[in-house]
């Protein structure tokens, strides 16, 4: 039986100046094939000017069940938002 191809995550730069964004994934035997497949699968309507591929198992992520704990700290730090400070209207834009 032939070996199953690894999964690749695909990132595409939609237009010049923007960052690459994750658009989906696909299977391919190696990085070069992953790039070519990604081009054919994800940019058929000219959706991109650049593609990155990363093997899925190279991605490290937080445990989604621990999200509440992992992202709790900034919730109490409301002063990190500019709207926390009341600037009177007649002072002008700031």
């Amino acid at each position, binding site marked *: 039986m032939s070996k199953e191809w690894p999964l690749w995550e695909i990132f595409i730069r939609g237009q010049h100046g923007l960052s690459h964004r994750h658009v989906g994934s696909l299977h391919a035997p190696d990085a070069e094939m992953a790039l070519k497949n990604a081009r054919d699968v994800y940019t058929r309507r000219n959706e991109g000017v650049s593609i990155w591929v990363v093997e899925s198992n190279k991605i490290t992520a937080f445990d989604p069940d621990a999200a509440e704990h992992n992202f709790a700290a900034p919730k109490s730090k409301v*002063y990190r938002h500019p709207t926390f400070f009341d600037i009177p209207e007649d002072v002008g834009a700031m």
Partner: protein
Amino acid sequence: MYAQLVETGQSEGTEQELEFQAKIDRGVRIEANDWMPEGYRKTLIRQIGQHAHSEIVGQLPEGNWITRAPSLQRKAILLAKVQDEAGHGLYLYCAAETLGISRDEMTAQLLSGKAKYSSIFNYPTLTWADMGAVGWLVDGAAIMNQVPLQRCSYGPYSRAMIRICKEESFHQRQGFDIMRQLCQGTDDQKAMAQDALNRWWWPSLMMFGPSDKDSVHSEQSMKWGIKQNTNDELRQKFVDQTVPQAEWLGLTVPDPELKWNEEKGGYDFGEPDWSEFFEVIKGNGPCNRDRLEARNKAWDDGEWFRDGLTAHAEKQQQHNIAAE
């Protein structure tokens, strides 16, 4: 401006360079793997590096007041602001690294004094009111400079600036909020705010760099889309925005030549003392030595910790290999 007197190379006019210039003129962003002239690459490494160093050294004057903030809330806010500066330094170092310089090389250049950072961070923060003045004036001037940099021709720099600008607005507003509270307080508190304005006004105007007629590198930087406005344009904009805010606070801008000019629709104002600026840039400002000593100490004191983390990572890797 967080990057001052950035030296630029010269374009040599080859066909490849002409194509590159045409791309910039069309407003197309340049990305890390695109061809670019050596001068463009070097200019950006210097500018982004200087900008990153400024964010990092910029933590020191404000860090000075974290333990002495007048309330727990002010302390938490100041701490959050200084954390932001560290974050901004990181975004920028990473943007510079896309151009082929390593983080360690940049750090070494800062620590040896070879790389510059903004002149403004070589002034001392003597009173709590300085936290207000720094946020209001220094961050105000930085925003003035950074907003157009969001359209910089180099993609990674422009994207870092978009993120930074979004976060920076809190900085200026918290500074103004400190000034406002002092100005609405006792006579002594208001005098403290006035004193801070007196000391920070001219160094803030110097942040934009020397006058256009003396700014030898501006022209090439503007042609390459690295810089969008001249030093004098940005300085004028800053004065026009800030003077009414000072008036609102009931403070006096320490410039006898300051006068509204109806015809140009902006203020006329005096010339900063450029000899002071060049002395500070050369390393002879009031705090240059302190700042570099503090950065060197932080780097040296952190060595065992960095090494520890590396050793741990290596050990984990060994474990993983053994487990496979």
